[in-house]
């Protein structure tokens, strides 16, 4: 798949085009440019390193939203195996923006669910651009109960711009659907792992994000509001999204130091979309390791530690 380069990747693209020209010229005129080619390749590697090791928060947001990035179903089908999809919230509908079911991971039977985006328009309409309605959150709750009943760990993959702001969504109480999950995930009597794989958009992300271990991919973001939304309110214009992205402290390393997440899962150079199989393997290893660790913890201790972890989050003065 030819990837559409992001704005900040243009210097790499330009060098790669020059290299291609050089090789073509060499072949056409039968001249040996090996040393130039080598030098150019070295320069490309150096430029990549420079760019990818110094990504700004806003650049990471763009990687997190890259349409070629692996999505929930890619992980459920490839990091996991034997995925069986289970449909519906048993109340109103099946939310295609949040597929879930049972799957194996590292020899462990799991219940898993996540937000799903589409890569092109038709798929995106089916998946509602990864914005779940109340039915998605209620399906997640139903699957949590299933996990609890049969003693399987619950894994959630987070990748949403936010819960869907629609008329039906409000009529069927999206607020309540999210709030109930927040309450119930805190006392779910099986090990839980949540992974922010792309966009961690506000309450819609947190609605499946209360877990014993919260992991986050290196270039994912997790925020109370989109950088554009924050810029529109506090800077009075969306064009200030890069400043807002920086101010919001929404990157994986920021959130690790704030104690909001437990672990950063590394991505292949340039982002998960550059190398799906590496990204899929990284997620598999990280989730499997956390599940192995959690399996050893008695459930009462699990619940106490889960509660204490979220209970500690927040900064204030005066007592």
């Amino acid at each position, binding site marked *: 798949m030819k990837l559409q380069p992001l704005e900040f990747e243009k210097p790499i693209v330009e060098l790669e085009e020059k290299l291609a020209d050089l090789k073509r010229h060499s072949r056409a005129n039968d001249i040996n440019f090996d040393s130039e080619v080598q030098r150019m390749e070295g320069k490309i590697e150096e430029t990549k390193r420079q760019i990818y090791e110094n990504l700004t928060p806003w650049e990471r947001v763009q990687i997190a939203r890259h349409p070629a990035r692996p999505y929930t179903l890619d992980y459920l089908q490839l990091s996991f195996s034997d995925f069986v999809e289970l449909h519906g919230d048993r109340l109103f509908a099946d939310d295609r923006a949040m597929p879930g079911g049972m799957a194996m991971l590292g020899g462990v039977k799991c219940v898993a669910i996540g937000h799903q985006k589409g890569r092109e328009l038709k798929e995106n309409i089916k998946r509602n651009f990864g914005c779940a309605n109340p039915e998605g959150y209620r399906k997640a709750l139903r699957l949590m109960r299933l996990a609890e009943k049969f003693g399987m760990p619950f894994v959630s993959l987070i990748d949403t711009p936010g819960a869907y702001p629609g008329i039906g969504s409000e009529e069927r109480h999206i607020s309540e659907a999210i709030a109930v999950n927040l309450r119930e995930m805190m006392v779910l009597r099986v090990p839980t792992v949540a992974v922010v794989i792309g966009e961690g958009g506000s309450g819609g992300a947190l609605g499946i994000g209360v877990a014993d271990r919260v992991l986050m991919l290196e270039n994912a973001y997790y925020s109370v509001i989109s950088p554009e939304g924050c810029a529109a309110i506090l800077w009075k214009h969306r064009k200030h999204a890069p400043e807002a992205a920086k101010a919001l402290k929404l990157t994986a390393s920021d959130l690790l130091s704030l104690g909001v997440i437990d672990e950063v899962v590394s991505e292949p150079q340039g982002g998960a979309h550059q190398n799906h199989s590496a990204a899929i393997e990284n997620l598999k290893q990280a989730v499997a390791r956390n599940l192995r660790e959690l399996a050893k913890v008695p459930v009462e201790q699990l619940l106490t530690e889960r509660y204490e972890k979220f209970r500690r989050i927040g900064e*204030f003065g005066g007592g």
Partner: protein
Amino acid sequence: MGIFSKPSFTSEKKRDVPEGLWQKCPSCSEVIHNLELIQNLLVCPKCQHHFNLAAGERILQLADPNSFTEHDADLISVDTLKFTGMASYIDRLKSYQKKTGLKDAVITGECKIHEHPVAIAVMDFSFIAATMGSVVGEKIARIIEHATRQRIPVIILSASGGARMYEGVLSLMQMAKTCGALALHSKARLPYISILTHPTTGGVSASFATVGDIIIAEPKAMVGFAGPRVIRETTHQDLPAGFQTSEFLEEHGLVDMIVARKQLRDTLGQLLSYIAPAR
């Protein structure tokens, strides 16, 4: 924790009535004398429009006389993210503290209602639109934990513009923290009554406000997750009449009852007589 013999609040400005002797009702345009408005609990005598009420005033209206003890009055917000947008967070906090006499957007404590001891939290919309940051989340979590230890009911009066953006994802996590505290309170088979007042939106609506054993709404309060403008822009649809009002939510099955301010104290007393733990 401060213990007072009579109601005492971090708010110095208890009466949430704007300057001037006369008020114009924003709903029906009736001109009302301040005294009449105060006697009517800040409800328009003509159209029953419920004016926003300061948290301290609400507690005075609901609690048995001299029964309120405030908790955690000293908690104050800090600028962990060093937020410098158009206006810095610290500047904003200072200006609201000065304007409202409050330290932050919620008052919590213990009181009695019709002789039932309860833990109570009241949000004050006049403080940065009662957005929820770490202080709001912490005070609410603490009062719920206190209620669980004391085996008493929790009553929360919500009003909020949503999350406190200046605290980034820390404000988001207060949703999990407060709902977690409610989970343990609920597991202990203790009652939680949530009261939705105008407006209750965003992260507060999507956390503790909508998981009450009983959910009460004040008349005509705006309650919803997303703002109407965002919904209109996303869906390109006209919003139904009365969308996201208390009445709409009662019709659609979220709220148990709509209770006018004047009846709220007695209604709570009656509900507590059914579900408060026997003492």
